[in-house]
């Protein structure tokens, strides 16, 4: 009974949890509900992965209505991988969250915070699990709307403005997406993704297909924060509550990338997208621009969270670069970096969350000397920062190795050079924080700081440990990413 309904539970439980938290109105209890739901999610996700590995694609007809008419939930290796990532990150962030949330969000709003978090979780998991184009749109909106609220909860007044900025961009993105889906529907008469993929080859008139591809790609790219439509991201990350930043940075953009993968590879098809159209050229240009320009901009940020946000834009460039290469090695690198970047960015934002919790400081200048007073917290920051650079022994190295190898396999020397140059810029922006935090003399505010509460430290370090462990044991990450890449490259087509 339960095992056959796992796909539905994956989405329905957080939705129910959201309703419950809205009803209880008490921050503490709401947190507890969110915690229980959040830890159930990865269990379901792992159970689904197991089913996929054992039996192949899991298809679930929602409400008993058979696809393509009914909504189909469809779990293959790629979606299982994303489900695990999102649910695991959610569980870790929520476990870390209570005191940070209590310190940054007014008491009467804390329960709402958990409501919105669970809704967001529901939306993100929904996007990853659904096999229906319009249903994906609904979940996209569920996650986006709740995200706007989550960002606006930041205590800085600019948080509201950032949320508004994101709302506009997000709405445009969602509209573009739904326009594209509309075009697909007109041409194929179906909203079921697998069904669309099956029928798309029969279309003679290629022009509406191109329009659909353009609308959908641009629409999703806005959510991915692909350069140059990334401008909403730095402000949103910088001014949202620490917990929200850690959660969004490790999940929201990643799910959007998943959707992009789905459309480019499974729906429109590798041959159409990458051989007949110059998508590789366009996407590589944008990725390279992101990797270099956003990294350079990150170097000049005064706010640590903003700096990490620009670094995220650059790192998303690595992921899209892997996708653009559309080879086994490249795609594996891109997909594995989805996971790896999520882990390292969550660790970084959690470490900064600890600093904010103790000192309220987010400016680099204001955290001078903090390494000597919060050595464990900043130790985690250093290790995660090294992963960002791609030092061997961390997850960052695994991704980078695949990407450089993919570039060299194609004989693209210049691309390998750009990848390493981007890493070197990361040395500068990570090094800048480390230098200030460890080798400057602390001011009075920092001298009073001590390590954060135990649970914040423990969960920051669980992720930090994961950075190192997954840098050596890549069975779950690179192993599955490699097989997912195989799935995508053969495609449903």
């Amino acid at each position, binding site marked *: 009974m339960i095992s056959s309904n796992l796909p539905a539970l994956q989405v329905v439980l957080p939705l129910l949890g959201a309703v419950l938290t809205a009803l209880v109105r008490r921050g503490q209890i709401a947190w507890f509900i969110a915690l229980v739901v959040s830890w159930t999610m990865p269990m379901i996700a792992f159970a689904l992965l197991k089913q996929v590995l054992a039996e192949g694609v899991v298809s679930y007809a929602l409400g008993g209505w058979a696809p393509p008419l009914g909504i189909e939930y469809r779990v293959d290796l790629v979606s299982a991988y994303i489900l695990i990532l999102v649910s695991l990150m959610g569980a870790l962030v929520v476990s870390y969250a209570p005191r940070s949330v209590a310190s940054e969000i007014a008491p009467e709003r804390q329960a709402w915070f958990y409501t919105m978090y669970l809704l967001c979780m529901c939306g993100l998991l929904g996007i990853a699990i659904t096999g229906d184009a319009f249903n994906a749109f609904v979940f996209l909106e569920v996650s986006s709307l709740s995200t706007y609220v989550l960002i606006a909860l930041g205590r800085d007044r600019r948080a509201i403005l950032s949320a508004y900025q994101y709302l506009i961009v997000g709405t445009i993105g969602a509209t573009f997406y739904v326009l594209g889906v509309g075009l697909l529907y007109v041409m194929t008469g179906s909203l079921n993704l697998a069904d669309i993929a099956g029928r798309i080859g029969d279309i003679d008139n290629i022009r509406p297909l191109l329009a659909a591809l353009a609308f959908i790609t641009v629409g999703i790219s806005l959510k991915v924060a692909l350069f140059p439509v990334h401008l909403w991201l730095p402000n949103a990350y910088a001014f949202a509550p620490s917990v929200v930043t850690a959660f969004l940075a490790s999940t929201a953009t990643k799910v959007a990338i998943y959707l992009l993968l789905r459309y480019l590879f499974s729906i429109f098809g590798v041959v159409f997208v990458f051989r007949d159209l110059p998508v590789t050229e366009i996407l590589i240009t944008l990725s390279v621009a992101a990797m270099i320009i956003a990294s350079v901009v990150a170097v000049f940020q005064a706010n640590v969270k903003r700096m990490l946000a620009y670094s995220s834009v650059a790192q998303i460039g690595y992921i899209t670069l892997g996708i653009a290469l559309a080879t086994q090695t490249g795609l594996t690198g891109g997909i594995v970096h989805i996971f790896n970047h999520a882990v390292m960015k969550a660790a970084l934002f959690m470490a900064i969350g600890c600093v904010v919790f103790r000192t309220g400081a987010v400016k680099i200048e204001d955290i001078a000397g903090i390494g000597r007073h919060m050595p464990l917290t900043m130790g985690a920051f250093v290790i995660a920062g*090294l992963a960002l*650079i*791609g*030092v*061997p*022994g961390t997850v960052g190295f*695994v991704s*980078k*190795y*695949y990407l*450089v*190898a993919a570039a*060299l*396999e194609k004989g693209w020397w210049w691309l*390998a*050079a750009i990848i*390493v*140059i981007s*890493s*070197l810029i990361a*040395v*500068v922006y990570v*090094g800048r924080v480390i*230098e200030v935090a*460890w*080798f*400057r*003399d602390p001011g009075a505010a920092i001298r009073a700081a001590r390590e954060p509460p135990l649970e914040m430290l423990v969960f920051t370090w669980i992720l930090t440990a994961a950075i190192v462990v997954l*840098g*050596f*044991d*890549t069975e779950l990450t*690179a*192993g599955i990413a*490699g097989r997912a890449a195989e799935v995508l490259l053969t495609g449903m087509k």
Partner: protein
Amino acid sequence: MSAETLIVVALLVPIVGAGLIALTGRNPNLRETMTIATSLVLFATVMGLLAAVLSGATPRTASVEIFAGVELGFSVEPLGMIFAVVASGLWIVNSIYSIGYMRGHNEPRQTSFYVCFAIAIAGAIGVAFAGNLFTLFLFYEILTLSTYPLVAHKADAKAISGGRIYLLMLLGTSMGLLLPAIVWTGIVAGTLDFMPGGILAGKLGGTALGLLLALYIFGIGKAAVMPMHYWLPAAMVAPTPVSALLHAVAVVKAGVFTVLKVVVYVFGIDLLAETGASEWLVFVAAFSLLMASIVALTRDNLKARLAYSTVSQLAYVVLGAALATQAAIIGSGMQIVMHATGKITLFFCAGAIMVATHKTEISDMAGIGRRMPVTMFAFLVGSLSIIGLPPLGGTWSKWWLGIGAVDAGHEWVVAVLMTSSLLNVAYLLPIVAPKAKPGERIAVTEAPKACLIPLCITAALCIVLFFGAGQVETLLAQLATTAPADIAATLPKGMPDGL
């Protein structure tokens, strides 16, 4: 213990030691005991492997696959054995010296100093025992990262900017050039393992080989081949024990060791000799060798002069690798040992002078020989070994390199070696010589015993190594290209077999 266990223990000992040092940080005496105990245990462990390697075996651990084609694995071959013995042996002496220096100089944050030091040694041992390029790269970076806090230790503006240059140049070269070189090797050869005779034969053409070699040589920034040498003088802001062990032994030797390892086990010297892919490097290394010596002449700061001297001496090792003959490779391996002992002595002396007189500039050191006779005698011994005069260890490395150069048909290199020795005389000996003003009475003020004893030990080692070089030769003679057995017969004789 089996050899495999010993390898793992050797890697773990300094890490565990670092933990113990951190835990006992509150009690300086206990903490220093930990450092010395760790260094002794490590040395004993490394020596435990020596017998097996001397008998021609190559102990190795099982490899663990990380991801497609990238493995973590260790093996101990002669070059690595030599490097590990040098690094772990000198760490003992250096630890004693550190105590005297750090206390005598009232340095802050000594616990983190000793912790980082132990981690750096773990990095060096990992580099020495690496069984493939990935493992080597991993520990190479650990070595870079763990020594960065040591360079910036003083945390003043100069130390921070020195640390910046250090980190950016070492990470920049390794991530920017070495990593692509490794990935390229992996794609072309299908393996990253170190194999006798190399893994690239028949896989790449001459020009591509030369290019790949260039990526390696300049990517291995720790080898300090000009123009990638600039981090080394910048790193001299570190406390002297760091300059002594790390920037004369562990870090820079890890660099040239990596160069040798790549030349011998990735390219294979036969392949390089056939294709001439390393011809260009002979000239680059010779240039680096002479140029750095000339720059050393112009430096008045003692540590800066020694740093440029190190750049020059490292180029000897690279030169030997570039010549790609058996004798030259033996010379390079010898140079790793001989220069390490000589240069650590010189740095110990520089530090002793700083502790005793607070002087750093050579022009202020008039009459230093009369003020610190023991120290300056050790300095003289170290200098003569660097110059390459008998009866000191440095003689042999230059001897073998000369033979190697003639074998390779580059007779002019012998002239370069001789010129360089003359330059060494010119920049090292005047430091010992400066005269006191006539009639001035100078009291003898030596540095604390903890500083003085280590520098006497290493100076004595320079002499011992002249007579004991046979052991090193036996080890290096195993560095056969393809057929290990024939080597002994083809090697020119001319070295005493032990004392």
